[in-house]
């Protein structure tokens, strides 16, 4: 039996190793969100407005992402993406060095694929909370549909989407911990590699745990601040 429960020195050293994975984890999160937000919103609109073909496609897409474990999505996409891309490039004679791309790009694609589907549902339910009367009122003062969305609907929709956006973001950050499966140099992989040298897995996982805790609580806090700013119009008279 190992004599001491926890190797403190290793615990502290590896904490910083794990911490050094944060930029990659955040980069993947931010890029995936940046790609997924507009796609998710657009697809949510196709669902709400029941646009014939797209609506059906979105339904299937969302159902697949929500219906399968993300680790399996990672496995499948990571295996299939290069094959599909390579054959596309081949067909159109595009000379693109598909195999020289960094794993980071796979991570961007995989996590965007996943997050966009989640955001479809987030935006869809948020759009539903905006009273139809708001759109009508905008029409009645002579705004076009695009103007009404930009100035009235989206700002209000965002407020009710905030808590779910926060959850989606946190789930995304957590999901990057599965990036180890595609050799993404993020928090978990870095700590695991460090652990491997002396087999200090327990310590490594405690470090990973702490790093994610800090990361996610910070993100939660930021969202709360942002949400408060967005929803200042909800303040009651007595406040």
């Amino acid at each position, binding site marked *: 039996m190992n004599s001491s429960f926890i190797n403190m020195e290793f615990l502290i050293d590896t904490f910083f190793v794990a911490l050094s994975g944060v930029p990659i984890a955040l980069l993947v999160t931010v890029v995936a969100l940046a790609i997924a937000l507009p796609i998710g919103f657009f697809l949510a609109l196709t669902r709400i407005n029941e646009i014939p073909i797209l609506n059906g496609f979105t339904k299937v897409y969302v159902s697949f992402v*929500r219906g*399968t*474990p993300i680790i399996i999505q990672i*496995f*499948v996409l990571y295996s*299939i993406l290069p094959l599909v891309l390579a054959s596309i490039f081949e067909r159109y004679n595009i000379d693109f060095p598909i195999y020289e791309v960094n794993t980071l790009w796979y991570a961007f694609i995989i996590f965007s694929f996943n997050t966009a589907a989640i955001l479809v549902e987030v935006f869809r339910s948020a759009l539903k909370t905006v009273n139809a009367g708001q759109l009508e009122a905008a029409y009645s003062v002579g705004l076009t549909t695009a103007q009404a969305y930009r100035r009235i609907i989206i700002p209000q929709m965002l407020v009710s989407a905030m808590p779910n956006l926060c959850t989606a973001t946190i789930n995304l950050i957590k999901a990057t911990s599965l990036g180890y499966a595609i050799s993404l140099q993020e928090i978990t992989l870095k700590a695991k590699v460090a652990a491997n040298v002396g087999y200090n897995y327990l310590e490594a996982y405690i470090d990973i745990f702490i790093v*994610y805790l800090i990361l996610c609580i910070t993100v939660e806090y930021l969202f709360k601040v942002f949400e408060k700013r967005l929803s200042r119009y909800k303040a009651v008279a007595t406040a």
Partner: protein
Amino acid sequence: MEKYFDINYLWTALPQLVPFLWITLFVAALSVIFGTLLGLIIAVFKLSKNRFLQLLANSYITIMRCTPSIVLLFLVYYGIPAFADSFFGIYLQDVHTGVFVVITFSLQFAAMMAEVIRSAYLAIDKGQYEAAVSVGLTPFQAYRRIIFPQAVVVALPNFGNGLISVLQEGALAYTIGFIDIVGKANLIIANNYNTHALEIYIALAVFYWVLSVVIAKIFELLEKAFSKGQRSLKTS
């Protein structure tokens, strides 16, 4: 890509995977049962007026919310026995892996359920309680006969979502050597010298997808069956 993709691997994998589906479902079922009970307690804490209990519940929920499943799984699987051994001299190394899997996902499910239960409770108009006590029911009777049945209906869709998500998080149990459907899939891949993984993963994805669609459907029907009183005239 036809060069690599050999559908035969997929077909041969399917029957091999089926028996392990039950293990996956069993683990999910146990996690749901224990998780719901724990979640109920946490929801009660969070709704209570006691600041300390609220803090406890909130911290629990935050920690669970912020911990990736795979990390939680490892901490439970290696942490609990090491901790029990170092501090209490209790030897837990012989405990079956499945137990740790169930503990992990029960803990996680409880955090989800606490919020589901709490919001379902809050969704029921206070007037329902007031009306019940005003016709002479005791507070307990009011909860049991009026509030609870309505809260269940409100909670149902979120409960279904929670169930689907615990099923999916469970897919990570393979990382600690637990052989459920994913574990079995990885064994099949290993037996093919780690080749043709894609076909096997697609088989897995199909299982999960069908499963989640079926569960969603079941909950939709349940919701309909339970919400007879809530149905609005328009939709009937």
